[in-house]
């Protein structure tokens, strides 16, 4: 029945460290993790890379798939792409110093995301305003920025795929532009530009797994913030202790502003958007609840909803180095220091907007193909069987069987992927059963 054992493109499970405690099993929003044989953890279905399992694992058996920092190959030009969340990890340190620290770590170029965030915002605003008359997309539009949300919609809420704002994500925009510019500058092929995205969550992939169902990815390598934190901290100390730190100018010195730093926080995306009817929702559970409500026809009077599955927004990501509330206060102070200024205006980007510069890299149809539910649909007969099993167990969702809840367990049994005897309650009653006797 099993075709091949699914592996996650985003997380690794270390079976030796696993103590079979079912925390991850219960936290998984796609109900894709099981403990098999009371021993170790298995992925049985689609992983959308939300990182909840990493968050809850008490033994560190679940970790994100990131490219560890290797010394870049000689013929490559190494570029660090920096999520604003990185700046939130260093209290009292200004963004320029963090970028300089990265350069001292060996990156030839360091690009801060802020300029591309502003570009995205401008394009997003334009689409929303036009949608008021064209009505091409249904309200509310959903932010495409958090990749987990997009995958969650493709997997669990496919009827909401048309609600996703059809504008390229800031990261994809940045990767495309930086790659082109550097290739042109050095007169090399785009292939020889090695981009490392330094980010707070496990949603980007390691090079060894760059194709999920043949999806081509823009970013070659991803590093967790916690991968670079220690070394970067050392470099920043060095800068701090030197009398005259030398800041090299870079190709992409746009300067970090408060308007990009605010993106670390939940609500930061819509904060600078000129759209009145916009909401920001953060946290995985809240996100799911809101998506369910949108599917029931609510929030039609809202034009844009920013979702982040991590609590408090991106600075609550699983690969950050410092506590999210500490990071929040760092960011808030820094926003005030840097000031909010807009450098991109509607006029600047209107022509490229008309030329299709901001079209998303993945169509909704493709998203559904890539991340949609793959399980065989259940029949009404199987649903009857599931009901019968549930009535027999009268369970308390104890997860001792290794499934997240009784309903999922019953479904596994009906699908032939688990045995009724895995259920503790049934075993305790001392009667061994086969699915047939339940009919």
């Amino acid at each position, binding site marked *: 029945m099993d075709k091949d054992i699914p592996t996650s493109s985003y997380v690794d499970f270390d079976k030796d460290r696993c103590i079979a405690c079912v925390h991850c099993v219960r936290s998984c929003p796609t109900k894709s993790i099981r403990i098999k044989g009371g021993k170790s953890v298995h992925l049985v279905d689609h992983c959308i890379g939300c990182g909840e399992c990493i968050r809850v694992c008490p033994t560190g058996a679940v970790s994100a798939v990131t490219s560890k920092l290797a010394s870049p190959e000689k013929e490559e030009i190494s570029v660090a792409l920096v999520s604003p969340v990185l700046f939130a990890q260093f209290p009292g340190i200004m963004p320029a110093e963090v970028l300089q620290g990265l350069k001292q770590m060996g990156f030839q170029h360091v690009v801060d995301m802020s300029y591309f965030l502003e570009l995205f915002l401008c394009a997003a605003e334009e689409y929303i305003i036009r949608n008021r008359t064209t009505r091409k997309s249904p309200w509310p539009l959903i932010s495409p920025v958090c990749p987990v949300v997009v995958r969650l919609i493709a997997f*669990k*809420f*496919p*009827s909401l795929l048309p609600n996703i704002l059809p504008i390229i994500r800031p990261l994809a925009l940045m990767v495309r532009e930086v790659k082109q510019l550097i290739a042109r500058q050095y007169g090399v092929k785009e292939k020889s530009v090695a981009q490392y995205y330094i980010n707070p969550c496990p949603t980007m992939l390691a090079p060894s797994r760059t194709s999920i169902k043949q999806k081509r990815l823009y970013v070659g390598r991803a590093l967790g913030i916690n991968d670079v934190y220690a070394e970067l901290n050392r470099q920043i100390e060095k800068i701090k202790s030197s009398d005259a730190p030398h800041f090299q100018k870079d190709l992409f010195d746009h300067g970090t502003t408060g308007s990009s730093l605010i993106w670390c926080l939940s609500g930061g995306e819509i904060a600078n958007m000129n759209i009145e009817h916009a909401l920001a929702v953060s946290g995985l559970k809240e996100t799911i609840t809101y998506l*369910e*409500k949108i*599917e*029931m*026809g*609510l929030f039609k009077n809202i034009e844009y909803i920013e979702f982040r599955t991590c609590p408090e927004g991106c600075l609550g990501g699983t690969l950050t180095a410092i506590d999210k509330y500490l990071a929040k206060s760092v960011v808030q102070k820094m926003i005030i220091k840097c000031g909010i200024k807009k450098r991109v205006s509607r006029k600047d980007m209107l022509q490229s907007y008309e030329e299709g510069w901001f079209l998303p890299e993945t169509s909704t149809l493709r998203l559904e193909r890539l991340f949609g*539910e793959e399980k065989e*649909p*259940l*029949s*009404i*007969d199987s*649903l*009857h069987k599931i*009901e019968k099993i549930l009535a027999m167990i009268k369970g308390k969702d104890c997860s001792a069987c290794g499934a997240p809840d009784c309903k999922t367990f019953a*479904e596994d049994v009906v699908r032939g992927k688990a045995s009724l005897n895995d259920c503790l309650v049934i075993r305790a009653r001392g009667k061994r059963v086969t699915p047939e006797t339940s009919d």
Partner: protein
Amino acid sequence: MTALIKSYHIKKRDFIRAGEASINVQNLLKSLSFDSNLIRRVAICGYEGEMNVVMHGGDGLLSVEINSGKIVMVISDNGAGIEDIDLAMRKGFSTASDEYRKMGFGAGMGLPNMKKNADIFNIESEKGKGTEVRMIFSMRKEGG
């Protein structure tokens, strides 16, 4: 193949749990891989119906019968009943109190919206006794 029948209680003025029955139905239909737009239509009708019961009805019941060919949803309550059904079906007509309007309800779109989203829509009501809305959705099951 026998149809699968599920029923859910709806409690008067229970705004916190309102919508739960629809979410359950939604998830049930998803596991059967019904067409996502059909699921959405059922969910919208379920939610509107639930809200009607919570606001105007007494206690009520939402039940669905899922066949491989069609979905029948019946929402019934023992509440105030509707005096003039034609009037109630009119867009923008609402008897919602100021309290409910302040909560953002009472736009008078509930019943018309349900009628729009169901393939067959039938409503019966008696003043003082209650209301029963019966909706049928036909299935356009997509391959795989």
